[in-house]
């Protein structure tokens, strides 16, 4: 196993270098650079813009820029943000942490809802409940997250109007934007925790819905396969109860692909929850990434891509190792 891991790690090096070259090349194909918009300012002299470009090394040939960037990368330096003139790591660390909060809660919500729903659908195949789970799952899959977030925001505003008319309660039951309340800093640590959870619930739920459909349907199929297999029939023949058969004998092997896939969640943890973060003003990595893209803050973009690539490679390795751990049929030589 140890030799296998070392071998895999060495194989990752050329993959990583290839990926960085591709990223850098694509980033250079975009017309213009960070200072382009400055050229449209009527009172900024062209020589000033040239000086700024030179300061960030943008006047050098592309291959020189790439080599310099890789040299920095080798010592763990992701470069400097043009926008904030601070190290890229400093610029992205906090948004990554915020995205991670969102990802963890949404994964918990996803598992909490999908596992019972998948099991129920398999056990009560073609029942009304099974059909309902399927319809809801597909709706979740078909509705883009950013749109669902907007629908929920609208629903929250409408709910406020109703609660005001009916109960005189003119407050939103969940926040429509942000991560904390304005009085967050004056709260106790416990209340701060709940404040973040309160802000996080809707965006997490939205993110979770898109995964629920796939998760539920695959688990249902896995469960149906195992519930019809010989060892389950044997267990039932020996008098094992329905609950035990379902949750111990069938669910455990059925869930193996999901456990093995945990490693793949690594890049998702810091990769951001997509446009939900933008719509709900969650200070995560997606808005940071989009802002960096729009302003061509190229080292921030590349820094994020590098981290995601590294985590993706590490995640794949972890997934393979986990698979061996949970599935006795797989062994590494």
């Amino acid at each position, binding site marked *: 196993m140890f030799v296998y891991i070392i071998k895999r790690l060495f194989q990752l090096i050329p993959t990583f270098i290839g990926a960085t070259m591709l990223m850098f090349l694509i980033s250079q194909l*975009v*017309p*213009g*650079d960070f200072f*382009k*918009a400055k*050229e*449209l*300012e*009527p*009172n*900024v*002299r*062209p020589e*000033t813009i040239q*000086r*700024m470009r030179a*300061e960030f090394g943008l006047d050098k040939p592309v291959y020189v820029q790439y080599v310099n960037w890789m040299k920095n990368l080798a010592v763990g330096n992701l470069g400097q943000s043009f*926008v*904030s*003139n*601070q190290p890229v790591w*400093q610029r992205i660390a*906090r*948004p990554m942490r*915020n995205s991670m909060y969102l990802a963890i809660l949404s994964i918990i919500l996803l598992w909490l809802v999908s596992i019972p729903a998948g099991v129920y659908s398999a056990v009560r195949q073609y029942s009304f409940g099974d059909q309902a789970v399927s319809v809801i799952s597909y709706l979740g899959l078909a509705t883009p997250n950013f749109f669902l977030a907007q629908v929920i*925001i609208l629903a929250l*505003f409408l709910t*406020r*109007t109703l609660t*005001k008319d009916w109960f005189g309660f*003119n407050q*939103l039951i969940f*926040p*429509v*934007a*942000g*991560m*904390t309340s*304005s009085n*967050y*800093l004056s709260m106790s640590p416990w209340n701060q925790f709940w404040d973040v959870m309160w802000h996080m619930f809707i965006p997490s739920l939205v993110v979770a819905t898109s995964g629920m459909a796939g998760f539920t349907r695959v688990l249902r199929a896995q469960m149906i396969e195992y519930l019809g297999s010989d060892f389950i029939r044997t267990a039932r023949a020996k008098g094992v109860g329905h609950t035990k058969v379902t949750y111990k004998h069938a669910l455990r092997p059925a869930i193996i692909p999901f456990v093995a896939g945990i490693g793949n969640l690594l890049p998702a943890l810091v990769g951001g929850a997509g446009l939900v973060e*933008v*719509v*709900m*003003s969650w*200070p*995560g990595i997606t*808005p940071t990434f989009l*802002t960096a893209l729009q302003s*061509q803050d190229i080292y921030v973009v590349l820094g994020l891509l590098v981290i995601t690539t590294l985590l993706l490679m590490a995640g794949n390795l972890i997934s393979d190792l986990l698979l061996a751990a949970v599935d006795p049929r797989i062994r590494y030589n």
Partner: protein
Amino acid sequence: MKRLLTLISLMALAASAFAQPFVWPDSWSNATPGEAVRGGELRISLIGDPRTFNPVTSAESQALSDYLFTNGAAVLIIRGPDSDEWLPYGASSFTASEDGMTVDVTVRDGMKWSDGSPITAQDYYLRYVLETDPDIGSNGYDSWFMGDDQITVEKVGDNGLRFHFPRPDRLAFPVVAVAPVPDAVFGAAYRSGGAEAVKALWGTDVDVASTIWSNAFVPTVFQPGERIILQRNPYFGEWNVDSAGNALPYLDTYSMTIAGDLDSALNLYLAGDIDQFSPRNLDDIGVINNAVNNGDIDVTVMESVSPVASSQFIVWNWNKASDPDKQALFRNANFRRAMAHVMDRDAIIDLVYNGAGLPMYTNVYPINDYWVNHDVEKYPYDPEKASELMASIGYDRKNADGLLINAEGKTASFILATNAGNTAREQIAAIFGDAAREIGVDVQVQAIDFNLLVDQLLSEGEDRPFDAILIGLTGGSRDWPFGVNVIPCATNLHMYNTSDACITAQETLMGQLFNVGRETLDTEAARDIGYEIQATEADLMPILYAVSPMAHYSWSASLHGYHNEGQINPLLGAYELPLVFMAR
């Protein structure tokens, strides 16, 4: 020794007694000091995190940076919303020499930084020193130059500064309106570590509570991606009072929630989490009015208050050596005048801006009405007149496709590019293109990447890679609203002709008028010169101006003390922060 100390104390007391506070005029607010309520919080939104807290290296322009680094700081001179006259603010007095080459400033006594230390002439002088050091790369660097000649500052005595201008300049006073930089922090860093040490100061990782400012409110909390909280500067009220002598500001707290984008900011506003929002268009106003009618929020909505400080225009490329026919067409004034006659500004205002826009005929934005020459040739929408002008340059018959052709059978055809994603510009281009095709001029509208568009526009030489571009510029000055990089030939934003020389006599004339006007200190005389620039440009018609959209405002009904009617616009702002208060 004791006597000496007593004497020094008495002298200090006497000095502070002579230190006159700045009295904020009643005419800058729609409320009187008697109505003001002390305390409370004004909550606004920011689109993104501040990029730095360093006042020397900041290059951004948003609510926080504008407030901290310029508008809200103890600038030497200041202008209110009611007049273009400059008043001493951080200065106790200032005088300009007869020839306009020097301005002498005496720094006000009694001003303090937010840590209680005195603000001195050295703090202002330091701003000049740091901004003119090219190694620091300050965004203010270019403002210290007139062409290639530098404006210089010297210290005079303990609290005097003298600004030297290479020639008389209408833009001199905005240069004098510098904000101080704390010498104890930035000066010390500069003296010990040079430019690099200054650049390393006060990034977004700084503990903002440790930074010092001259403003009414100073940042005390910064939660990246979430909010910035500014609290009242306890020393500001010592030298800033209202007309009744009350210390300013009235509010305790000024906070900014980082919304990410304007859609989220609107949601926050509708949720009652912020007190102010600038609606982008009439759709936003409709949503806000709906919430008001439902009784969900209690806010004031001010629709189409003033034009914005920006323009939308079409410019043709005069440097197209690789296509002599097109170059000749684009250089022909009657062609451009014909195109002006198919610019249907009323349709654009109705269809693109839902009626919230003003037609624009000159390079001066309508918001700067004082400087706008309303008598220039306007070339109103008139397809028949356009056809006549096209006929006058040889395009007097149509081919089977309905396109105008000349004697050689060549069509009048060009590509009009604009930046993809800017829906207003895409719509304007489409409306213009349709109208031009009606008279037989083939306009192919292309939406391309913004950077590519700018690259094409700013390309130089005799052969540039575009036909026509629809784009806009922003900015604007109340002193001389003509761009130094726009009007004179051979400057980088002289967009229609970036060869190294003027092609027409009108270009030469406009360049000369620009220089004379900028050096004319008498405002009315300068305006007359500005009028001549606009009239000359309208005659040449190198740039076809379209419309200027309107600005809208909305804020909590509890907010009071904002500008009087007619004094709210993107150049003047909506209020003076020390004078606003929240009614309970």
